[in-house]
């Protein structure tokens, strides 16, 4: 009986397990293999080069800039996303006229197609586009947003955050609603300030959600391809060429399969390290769990 039951278990998980094996684990194995070879895609010849591609990482003159852009983009997205998501959740976690409408508005970009959303922002951010047109009404001459490094980076960060912060807002809202109201009552009787209650009660109690959203957000930011491809194509220069975009360029624009795979594995390492790090932090930092 128990054995038959176990067999059923294996059968139930097999589509998912086989899917992960075929579409994730085997490709990762192949990526490692490619990274150790030079691949002439025109003749189809593979030549073993050992660690050459890994050594090339150190000599790639573009890589420092790419990693810098990746750090600024991911860091910017996570910081802004968590801060804004939490602020919105706190503002909307109460009853007042129109609260549902505001929640809906802030959430709505989540269901807008990424490419459509990015196209519209690109349209608004043109030199003669809506945003500069609006600024001109106040006599302000706006920059050519997408053609200057710092403003282009700011644009991709903001575009990404505004589109996705609704998810974090909703997660924070439900976490806030899980904080027992009596705690605030008790703290208030003890004369606690609002800010103290926020840092001593709210933040610790929602820390599991904070951590979870931080993981989701940073992993999402490291994989943001469409936004960059549509809005800036990595430009101007290399200023918004983040690692995922660079991987794509190397592999598909320049046909450097070997080096592209090496870069892809570097991306994978970052994602893995961040996840492990955050799980470690979870032990120290998270005060409360179900």
């Amino acid at each position: 009986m128990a054995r038959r039951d176990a067999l059923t278990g294996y059968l139930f998980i097999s589509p998912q397990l086989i899917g992960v094996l075929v579409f994730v684990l085997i490709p990762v194995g192949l990526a490692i293999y490619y990274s150790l070879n030079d691949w002439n895609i025109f003749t189809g010849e593979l030549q073993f080069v050992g660690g050459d591609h890994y050594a090339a990482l150190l000599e790639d003159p573009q890589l420092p800039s790419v990693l810098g852009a990746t750090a600024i983009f991911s860091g910017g997205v996570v910081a802004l996303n968590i801060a804004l998501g939490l602020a919105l959740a706190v503002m909307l976690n109460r009853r007042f006229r129109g609260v549902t409408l505001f929640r809906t508005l802030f959430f709505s970009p989540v269901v807008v197609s990424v490419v459509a959303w990015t196209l519209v922002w690109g349209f608004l951010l043109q030199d003669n586009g809506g945003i500069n047109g609006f600024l001109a009404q106040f006599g302000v001459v706006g920059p050519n947003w997408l053609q200057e490094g710092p403003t282009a980076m700011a644009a991709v960060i903001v575009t990404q955050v505004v589109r996705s912060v609704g998810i974090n807002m909703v997660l924070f809202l439900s976490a806030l609603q899980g904080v027992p109201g009596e705690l605030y009552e008790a703290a208030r009787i003890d004369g606690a300030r609002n800010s103290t209650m926020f840092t001593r009660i709210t933040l610790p109690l929602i820390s599991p959600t904070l951590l979870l959203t931080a993981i989701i957000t940073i992993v999402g930011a490291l994989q943001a391809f469409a936004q960059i491809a549509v809005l800036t194509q990595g430009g101007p220069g290399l200023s918004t060429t983040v690692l995922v975009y660079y991987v794509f360029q190397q592999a598909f624009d320049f046909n450097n399969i070997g080096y592209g795979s090496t870069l892809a594995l570097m991306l994978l390492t970052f994602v893995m390290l961040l996840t492990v790090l955050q799980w470690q932090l979870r032990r120290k930092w998270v005060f409360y769990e179900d």
Partner: protein
Amino acid sequence: MTSGAAGTAGATGVRASPPPTGVTQRKVPRPGAAVVRRVILYVALIVLAAPFVVPTVWMIASSFKPLSEIFASPPTIFTDSPTWAAYAEAFTFQPFAQQYFNSVYIAVLVTLITMLVSSLAGYAFARIRFPGRNLLFLVVLIGLLVPGEVTIVPLFQMFKQVGLINTHWPLILVTALAAPCVLATFVMRQFFISLPGELEEAARLDGLGRVGIWWRIFLPLAKPALSAVAILTFLASWNLYLEPTVYLTSPELFTLPQALTRYTDAYGGEMWNTQLAAATMTVVPVLVVFLIAQKQFVEGLAHSGLKG
């Protein structure tokens, strides 16, 4: 502002003041203070809402503008001479109707497969004991950690070997079985774990086997989790951009995100109003469904995250 808001936030349902009685006489309000705070809140929310709302409104409004008015200065939001020309052009410039159908059928198919696969796996990981269960669950979770950009080059080669390049199969199979499905399996497992253990015992007394228990007892109970899964998966498939760009070369096979970026003239310049019309047609139906079903939408999403 944030911390001030947080204070009232906790005491849900307490209408912003009157503030606490007690020893501290901090912030004892003049009668107008609550009103002032309320006004500040509204102003802050309206200003913050602009970047969330204006782009979509602008997109829809601009799609009806004649090309000459697209970059008018000063900018107009609503045009005096609306035209459907851009909408007509969206369909004649590319096989847009076909591309629309492609996106819809792929997303629906992927969502159905994922609901099936993830509820089976989630049920087994949560409720059936078998050797290696935790290890296998960890193996599956790896699928969530590996970015699609890492596997796309090998996957391209694999699909090329079996002759599936320039077909929809890669978009269906990878989405329905890899990362989005793993997330779904995780959500389903967490949900099924939270259900009481007596469910199986009762079902067994009724003579149900595992398949019966899964289908007749657990799936009906799992509606909130399943709707979360359906929403997340549908959006994941609907938004795919890298994958179609890599796998598809024939315009009649394109999906919407890819098609939207192809409205460029012979010089590579964007055909803005056509692009915005196509984008509007892509965005508005999903937005309408969301507005109708937003309660389930938001609760479903919250549910999927909370139980992490």
